[in-house]
Protein backbone atom coordinates (compact mmCIF):
# COMPACT_ATOMS: atom_id res chain seq x y z
CA UNK A 1 0.00 0.00 0.00
CA UNK A 2 2.73 2.36 1.00
CA UNK A 3 4.90 1.70 -2.02
CA UNK A 4 2.10 2.32 -4.49
CA UNK A 5 1.47 5.64 -2.87
CA UNK A 6 5.10 6.59 -3.15
CA UNK A 7 5.07 5.64 -6.82
CA UNK A 8 2.16 7.99 -7.34
CA UNK A 9 3.86 10.74 -5.45
CA UNK A 10 6.95 10.62 -7.61
CA UNK A 11 5.84 10.08 -11.19
CA UNK A 12 8.58 12.38 -12.37
CA UNK A 13 11.21 9.96 -11.09
CA UNK A 14 12.70 8.47 -14.27
CA UNK A 15 15.27 6.27 -12.59
CA UNK A 16 12.90 3.31 -12.46
CA UNK A 17 10.90 1.56 -9.81
CA UNK A 18 13.92 0.65 -7.70
CA UNK A 19 14.21 4.27 -6.49
CA UNK A 20 10.50 4.50 -5.91
CA UNK A 21 10.65 1.48 -3.67
CA UNK A 22 13.58 2.88 -1.78
CA UNK A 23 12.57 2.84 1.90
CA UNK A 24 14.32 6.17 2.41
CA UNK A 25 11.74 7.91 0.24
CA UNK A 26 8.88 6.19 2.06
CA UNK A 27 10.30 7.43 5.35
CA UNK A 28 10.67 10.98 4.06
CA UNK A 29 7.04 11.00 2.93
CA UNK A 30 5.84 9.83 6.34
CA UNK A 31 8.03 12.36 8.13
CA UNK A 32 6.72 15.13 5.96
CA UNK A 33 3.14 14.11 6.63
CA UNK A 34 3.80 13.91 10.39
CA UNK A 35 5.40 17.34 10.34
CA UNK A 36 2.43 18.73 8.44
CA UNK A 37 -0.09 17.28 10.90
CA UNK A 38 1.94 18.59 13.84
CA UNK A 39 2.11 22.08 12.37
CA UNK A 40 -1.63 22.17 11.72
CA UNK A 41 -2.47 20.99 15.24
CA UNK A 42 0.02 23.46 16.73
CA UNK A 43 -1.59 26.33 14.80
CA UNK A 44 -5.02 25.12 15.87
CA UNK A 45 -4.09 25.01 19.53
CA UNK A 46 -2.44 28.43 19.29
CA UNK A 47 -5.58 29.93 17.77
CA UNK A 48 -7.80 28.24 20.36
CA UNK A 49 -5.81 29.37 23.38
CA UNK A 50 -5.29 32.80 21.88
CA UNK A 51 -9.05 33.15 21.53
CA UNK A 52 -9.63 31.93 25.09
CA UNK A 53 -7.06 34.45 26.35
CA UNK A 54 -8.72 37.22 24.35
CA UNK A 55 -12.12 36.37 25.85
CA UNK A 56 -10.67 36.27 29.37
CA UNK A 57 -8.95 39.64 29.02
CA UNK A 58 -11.91 41.19 27.24
CA UNK A 59 -14.79 39.96 29.39
CA UNK A 60 -13.37 38.95 32.79
CA UNK A 61 -10.45 41.14 33.68
CA UNK A 62 -6.89 42.19 33.00
CA UNK A 63 -3.79 43.31 34.85
CA UNK A 64 -2.79 46.91 34.33
CA UNK A 65 0.37 48.70 35.34
CA UNK A 66 -0.37 52.28 36.34
CA UNK A 67 1.96 55.21 35.94
CA UNK A 68 1.63 58.86 36.78
CA UNK A 69 0.78 60.81 39.89
CA UNK A 70 -2.90 61.54 39.35
CA UNK A 71 -4.30 58.81 41.62
CA UNK A 72 -1.92 59.25 44.57
CA UNK A 73 -2.17 58.21 47.38
CA UNK A 74 -4.58 55.40 46.40
CA UNK A 75 -2.50 54.15 43.48
CA UNK A 76 1.12 55.22 43.22
CA UNK A 77 3.47 55.06 40.26
CA UNK A 78 4.22 51.55 38.86
CA UNK A 79 1.53 49.78 40.86
CA UNK A 80 -0.08 46.78 39.21
CA UNK A 81 -3.85 46.57 39.59
CA UNK A 82 -6.50 44.11 38.46
CA UNK A 83 -9.23 45.66 36.35
CA UNK A 84 -12.56 43.84 36.20
CA UNK A 85 -14.16 44.08 32.76
CA UNK A 86 -17.44 42.45 33.77
CA UNK A 87 -18.76 45.47 35.65
CA UNK A 88 -18.52 47.64 32.56
CA UNK A 89 -20.41 45.16 30.37
CA UNK A 90 -23.16 44.80 32.97
CA UNK A 91 -23.28 48.56 33.66
CA UNK A 92 -22.43 48.14 37.32
CA UNK A 93 -20.19 51.18 37.65
CA UNK A 94 -21.13 53.32 40.63
CA UNK A 95 -20.01 56.53 42.22
CA UNK A 96 -16.70 56.17 44.07
CA UNK A 97 -15.41 53.30 41.92
CA UNK A 98 -12.01 53.61 40.32
CA UNK A 99 -12.17 52.90 36.61
CA UNK A 100 -9.81 52.56 33.67
CA UNK A 101 -11.06 54.40 30.61
CA UNK A 102 -9.78 55.30 27.17
CA UNK A 103 -8.57 58.86 27.04
CA UNK A 104 -11.07 60.93 25.04
CA UNK A 105 -8.29 62.74 23.17
CA UNK A 106 -6.02 59.79 22.47
CA UNK A 107 -7.82 56.42 22.22
CA UNK A 108 -4.56 54.49 22.48
CA UNK A 109 -3.91 55.91 25.94
CA UNK A 110 -5.75 54.75 29.04
CA UNK A 111 -6.54 56.83 32.08
CA UNK A 112 -7.22 55.64 35.61
CA UNK A 113 -9.60 57.86 37.59
CA UNK A 114 -12.35 57.76 40.16
CA UNK A 115 -16.00 58.14 39.14
CA UNK A 116 -17.38 61.21 40.88
CA UNK A 117 -20.76 61.32 39.20
CA UNK A 118 -22.99 59.29 36.91
CA UNK A 119 -25.53 60.64 34.43
CA UNK A 120 -27.83 63.21 35.99
CA UNK A 121 -25.67 63.74 39.08
CA UNK A 122 -24.59 67.13 40.31
CA UNK A 123 -20.80 67.45 40.41
CA UNK A 124 -18.39 70.07 41.66
CA UNK A 125 -16.29 71.52 38.86
CA UNK A 126 -14.06 73.81 40.92
CA UNK A 127 -10.74 72.81 42.45
CA UNK A 128 -10.28 72.23 46.19
CA UNK A 129 -8.66 75.63 46.75
CA UNK A 130 -11.10 77.72 44.74
CA UNK A 131 -13.09 80.25 46.73
CA UNK A 132 -16.26 79.97 44.68
CA UNK A 133 -17.66 76.52 44.13
CA UNK A 134 -19.15 75.85 40.72
CA UNK A 135 -21.46 72.97 39.91
CA UNK A 136 -22.71 71.26 36.82
CA UNK A 137 -24.88 68.27 35.91
CA UNK A 138 -23.53 65.21 34.12
CA UNK A 139 -25.34 64.68 30.77
CA UNK A 140 -27.02 61.44 29.74
CA UNK A 141 -24.69 58.54 29.00
CA UNK A 142 -21.67 60.26 30.50
CA UNK A 143 -19.62 59.99 33.70
CA UNK A 144 -17.55 62.52 35.61
CA UNK A 145 -14.02 61.33 36.40
CA UNK A 146 -11.53 62.87 38.79
CA UNK A 147 -8.13 61.80 40.03
CA UNK A 148 -7.58 61.43 43.78
CA UNK A 149 -4.65 63.82 43.58
CA UNK A 150 -6.72 66.89 42.76
CA UNK A 151 -3.74 69.22 42.47
CA UNK A 152 -1.95 67.11 39.88
CA UNK A 153 -4.55 65.47 37.73
CA UNK A 154 -5.95 66.17 34.28
CA UNK A 155 -9.53 64.95 34.45
CA UNK A 156 -13.13 65.92 33.82
CA UNK A 157 -12.52 69.29 35.47
CA UNK A 158 -10.45 70.23 32.42
CA UNK A 159 -12.10 68.25 29.59
CA UNK A 160 -15.63 67.75 30.86
CA UNK A 161 -17.67 64.58 31.27
CA UNK A 162 -16.67 61.56 29.19
CA UNK A 163 -18.98 58.98 27.53
CA UNK A 164 -19.71 55.88 29.58
CA UNK A 165 -18.74 53.68 26.63
CA UNK A 166 -15.10 54.78 26.97
CA UNK A 167 -14.83 52.98 30.32
CA UNK A 168 -12.88 49.74 29.96
CA UNK A 169 -13.14 48.27 33.42
CA UNK A 170 -13.34 48.77 37.14
CA UNK A 171 -10.17 48.56 39.21
CA UNK A 172 -10.97 46.22 42.11
CA UNK A 173 -7.68 44.81 43.43
CA UNK A 174 -4.15 46.03 43.88
CA UNK A 175 -1.69 43.24 43.08
CA UNK A 176 1.72 44.89 43.38
CA UNK A 177 3.65 45.93 45.49
CA UNK A 178 2.96 42.93 47.78
CA UNK A 179 2.69 44.86 51.05
CA UNK A 180 -0.26 46.84 49.78
CA UNK A 181 -2.09 43.87 48.22
CA UNK A 182 -5.83 44.06 48.62
CA UNK A 183 -8.87 46.20 48.09
CA UNK A 184 -8.29 49.83 47.18
CA UNK A 185 -8.82 52.59 49.70
CA UNK A 186 -11.81 54.90 49.73
CA UNK A 187 -11.54 58.31 48.17
CA UNK A 188 -9.44 60.72 50.24
CA UNK A 189 -11.66 63.62 49.19
CA UNK A 190 -15.00 62.05 49.98
CA UNK A 191 -16.70 65.40 50.39
CA UNK A 192 -16.57 66.01 46.65
CA UNK A 193 -18.95 63.15 45.88
CA UNK A 194 -22.26 64.94 46.13
Amino acid at each position, binding site marked *: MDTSKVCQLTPWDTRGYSTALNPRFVKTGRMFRGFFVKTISFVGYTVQYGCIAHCAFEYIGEFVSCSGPSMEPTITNHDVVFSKRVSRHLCRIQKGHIVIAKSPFDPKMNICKRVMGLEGDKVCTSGPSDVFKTHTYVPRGHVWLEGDNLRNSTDSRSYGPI*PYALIRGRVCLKMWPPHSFGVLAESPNDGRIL
Partner: protein
Amino acid sequence: MMAQTGFGRRYFKAFVSGFFVAVPVTVTVLDRLAYVARVEGASMQPSLNPDGESSPDVVLLNRWSVRNYQVHRGDIVSVLSPKDPQQKIIKRVIGIEGDFIKTLGYKNRYVRVPDGHLWIEGDHHGHSFDSNTFGPVSLGLVHGRASHIIWPPSRWQRIEPSVPLERRPLLNWDGATEDGDD
Protein backbone atom coordinates in the same frame (compact mmCIF):
# COMPACT_ATOMS: atom_id res chain seq x y z
CA MET B 1 -27.58 0.53 30.08
CA MET B 2 -23.80 0.63 30.33
CA ALA B 3 -23.46 1.31 26.64
CA GLN B 4 -25.95 4.12 26.94
CA THR B 5 -24.07 5.94 29.74
CA GLY B 6 -20.82 5.44 27.84
CA PHE B 7 -22.35 6.97 24.75
CA GLY B 8 -23.81 9.81 26.81
CA ARG B 9 -20.50 10.57 28.40
CA ARG B 10 -18.71 10.52 25.09
CA TYR B 11 -21.30 12.80 23.60
CA PHE B 12 -21.01 15.15 26.57
CA LYS B 13 -17.22 15.22 26.28
CA ALA B 14 -17.35 15.99 22.59
CA PHE B 15 -19.89 18.71 23.24
CA VAL B 16 -17.76 20.37 25.96
CA SER B 17 -14.57 20.26 23.93
CA GLY B 18 -16.37 21.64 20.89
CA PHE B 19 -17.94 24.32 23.03
CA PHE B 20 -14.57 25.47 24.35
CA VAL B 21 -13.28 25.82 20.82
CA ALA B 22 -16.29 27.32 19.09
CA VAL B 23 -17.38 29.97 21.59
CA PRO B 24 -14.00 31.70 22.18
CA VAL B 25 -13.13 31.57 18.49
CA THR B 26 -16.49 33.07 17.52
CA VAL B 27 -16.30 35.78 20.14
CA THR B 28 -12.75 36.68 19.14
CA VAL B 29 -13.63 36.84 15.44
CA LEU B 30 -16.62 39.07 16.19
CA ASP B 31 -14.50 41.30 18.42
CA ARG B 32 -11.36 41.54 16.30
CA LEU B 33 -12.10 40.79 12.68
CA ALA B 34 -15.64 41.33 11.52
CA TYR B 35 -19.11 41.83 12.87
CA VAL B 36 -22.46 41.57 11.15
CA ALA B 37 -25.24 43.97 12.06
CA ARG B 38 -28.67 44.96 10.83
CA VAL B 39 -29.19 48.64 10.14
CA GLU B 40 -32.27 50.15 11.72
CA GLY B 41 -33.81 53.52 11.05
CA ALA B 42 -33.76 56.00 8.23
CA SER B 43 -30.78 58.11 9.26
CA MET B 44 -28.43 56.80 6.56
CA GLN B 45 -30.83 56.96 3.60
CA PRO B 46 -30.15 56.68 0.71
CA SER B 47 -26.83 54.87 1.26
CA LEU B 48 -28.30 52.30 3.63
CA ASN B 49 -31.93 51.21 4.06
CA PRO B 50 -33.18 52.96 0.89
CA ASP B 51 -36.54 51.20 1.12
CA GLY B 52 -37.12 52.03 4.75
CA GLU B 53 -38.25 49.43 7.25
CA SER B 54 -39.55 46.91 4.71
CA SER B 55 -36.12 45.48 3.86
CA PRO B 56 -33.46 46.46 6.38
CA ASP B 57 -29.88 46.18 5.15
CA VAL B 58 -27.38 43.92 6.85
CA VAL B 59 -23.84 45.27 6.81
CA LEU B 60 -20.47 43.72 7.46
CA LEU B 61 -18.50 45.79 9.97
CA ASN B 62 -14.77 45.48 9.51
CA ARG B 63 -13.26 45.69 12.99
CA TRP B 64 -9.72 44.82 11.97
CA SER B 65 -9.28 48.01 9.95
CA VAL B 66 -10.14 50.26 12.91
CA ARG B 67 -7.90 48.46 15.41
CA ASN B 68 -5.46 51.40 15.33
CA TYR B 69 -8.28 53.95 15.18
CA GLN B 70 -7.42 54.91 11.61
CA VAL B 71 -10.58 56.35 10.14
CA HIS B 72 -10.81 58.36 6.93
CA ARG B 73 -13.28 60.97 5.80
CA GLY B 74 -16.24 59.48 4.01
CA ASP B 75 -16.09 56.08 5.71
CA ILE B 76 -19.29 54.75 7.18
CA VAL B 77 -18.50 53.74 10.75
CA SER B 78 -20.45 52.27 13.62
CA VAL B 79 -19.93 54.12 16.87
CA LEU B 80 -21.00 53.39 20.43
CA SER B 81 -23.57 56.04 21.14
CA PRO B 82 -22.25 58.69 23.54
CA LYS B 83 -25.76 59.10 24.93
CA ASP B 84 -26.49 55.43 25.55
CA PRO B 85 -23.58 53.00 26.04
CA GLN B 86 -25.71 49.97 25.09
CA GLN B 87 -26.56 51.35 21.67
CA LYS B 88 -24.50 51.52 18.49
CA ILE B 89 -25.14 54.07 15.79
CA ILE B 90 -23.97 53.97 12.18
CA LYS B 91 -22.96 57.24 10.52
CA ARG B 92 -20.64 58.74 7.92
CA VAL B 93 -17.39 60.39 8.97
CA ILE B 94 -17.50 64.02 7.78
CA GLY B 95 -14.48 65.42 9.57
CA ILE B 96 -11.46 64.04 11.37
CA GLU B 97 -9.33 65.79 13.97
CA GLY B 98 -8.31 69.31 13.04
CA ASP B 99 -10.98 69.84 10.37
CA PHE B 100 -13.21 72.90 10.32
CA ILE B 101 -16.83 71.91 9.87
CA LYS B 102 -19.84 74.04 9.05
CA THR B 103 -22.48 72.53 11.27
CA LEU B 104 -26.18 72.04 10.64
CA GLY B 105 -28.04 73.14 13.73
CA TYR B 106 -25.33 72.58 16.33
CA LYS B 107 -24.88 75.23 19.02
CA ASN B 108 -21.84 76.69 17.22
CA ARG B 109 -22.03 77.51 13.52
CA TYR B 110 -18.42 76.49 12.83
CA VAL B 111 -16.56 73.85 14.78
CA ARG B 112 -12.96 72.71 14.80
CA VAL B 113 -12.94 68.97 15.50
CA PRO B 114 -10.72 68.45 18.59
CA ASP B 115 -7.79 66.01 18.71
CA GLY B 116 -8.85 62.39 18.91
CA HIS B 117 -12.39 63.17 17.82
CA LEU B 118 -14.58 62.71 14.75
CA TRP B 119 -17.48 64.61 13.27
CA ILE B 120 -20.11 62.09 12.13
CA GLU B 121 -23.37 62.72 10.32
CA GLY B 122 -26.14 60.64 8.85
CA ASP B 123 -26.79 61.03 5.13
CA HIS B 124 -30.42 61.84 5.80
CA HIS B 125 -30.06 65.38 7.17
CA GLY B 126 -32.69 66.36 9.66
CA HIS B 127 -33.69 62.76 10.40
CA SER B 128 -30.45 61.75 11.99
CA PHE B 129 -29.24 61.77 15.57
CA ASP B 130 -25.61 62.69 14.93
CA SER B 131 -22.80 65.12 15.73
CA ASN B 132 -25.12 68.03 14.98
CA THR B 133 -26.95 67.03 18.17
CA PHE B 134 -24.26 65.75 20.50
CA GLY B 135 -21.09 67.29 19.08
CA PRO B 136 -17.85 65.59 18.05
CA VAL B 137 -17.39 62.01 19.26
CA SER B 138 -14.22 60.50 20.65
CA LEU B 139 -12.24 58.08 18.46
CA GLY B 140 -12.30 55.55 21.28
CA LEU B 141 -16.01 55.01 20.66
CA VAL B 142 -15.47 53.77 17.09
CA HIS B 143 -16.65 50.17 16.85
CA GLY B 144 -16.18 49.16 13.22
CA ARG B 145 -16.12 50.35 9.62
CA ALA B 146 -18.99 49.25 7.40
CA SER B 147 -17.28 47.66 4.40
CA HIS B 148 -20.00 45.65 2.61
CA ILE B 149 -23.74 45.39 2.37
CA ILE B 150 -24.39 41.65 2.52
CA TRP B 151 -28.19 41.43 2.68
CA PRO B 152 -30.55 41.60 0.80
CA PRO B 153 -28.68 39.78 -2.01
CA SER B 154 -29.81 42.25 -4.65
CA ARG B 155 -27.96 45.01 -2.83
CA TRP B 156 -24.76 43.04 -2.30
CA GLN B 157 -21.99 45.60 -2.75
CA ARG B 158 -18.87 47.09 -1.35
CA ILE B 159 -19.31 50.44 0.40
CA GLU B 160 -17.04 53.07 -1.10
CA PRO B 161 -16.05 56.07 1.03
CA SER B 162 -17.47 59.34 -0.20
CA VAL B 163 -18.16 62.72 1.32
CA PRO B 164 -21.13 64.72 0.00
CA LEU B 165 -19.80 67.75 -1.90
CA GLU B 166 -21.51 70.34 0.26
CA ARG B 167 -20.38 68.67 3.48
CA ARG B 168 -16.65 68.79 2.85
CA PRO B 169 -14.46 70.42 5.52
CA LEU B 170 -13.79 74.10 4.97
CA LEU B 171 -10.00 74.08 5.15
CA ASN B 172 -7.19 71.71 4.10
CA TRP B 173 -9.48 69.73 1.85
CA ASP B 174 -6.90 69.60 -0.99
CA GLY B 175 -4.18 68.32 1.27
CA ALA B 176 -6.60 65.86 2.76
CA THR B 177 -7.36 64.11 -0.53
CA GLU B 178 -3.74 63.05 -0.69
CA ASP B 179 -4.00 61.72 2.84
CA GLY B 180 -7.13 59.87 1.94
CA ASP B 181 -5.52 58.04 -0.95
CA ASP B 182 -2.86 56.16 0.96
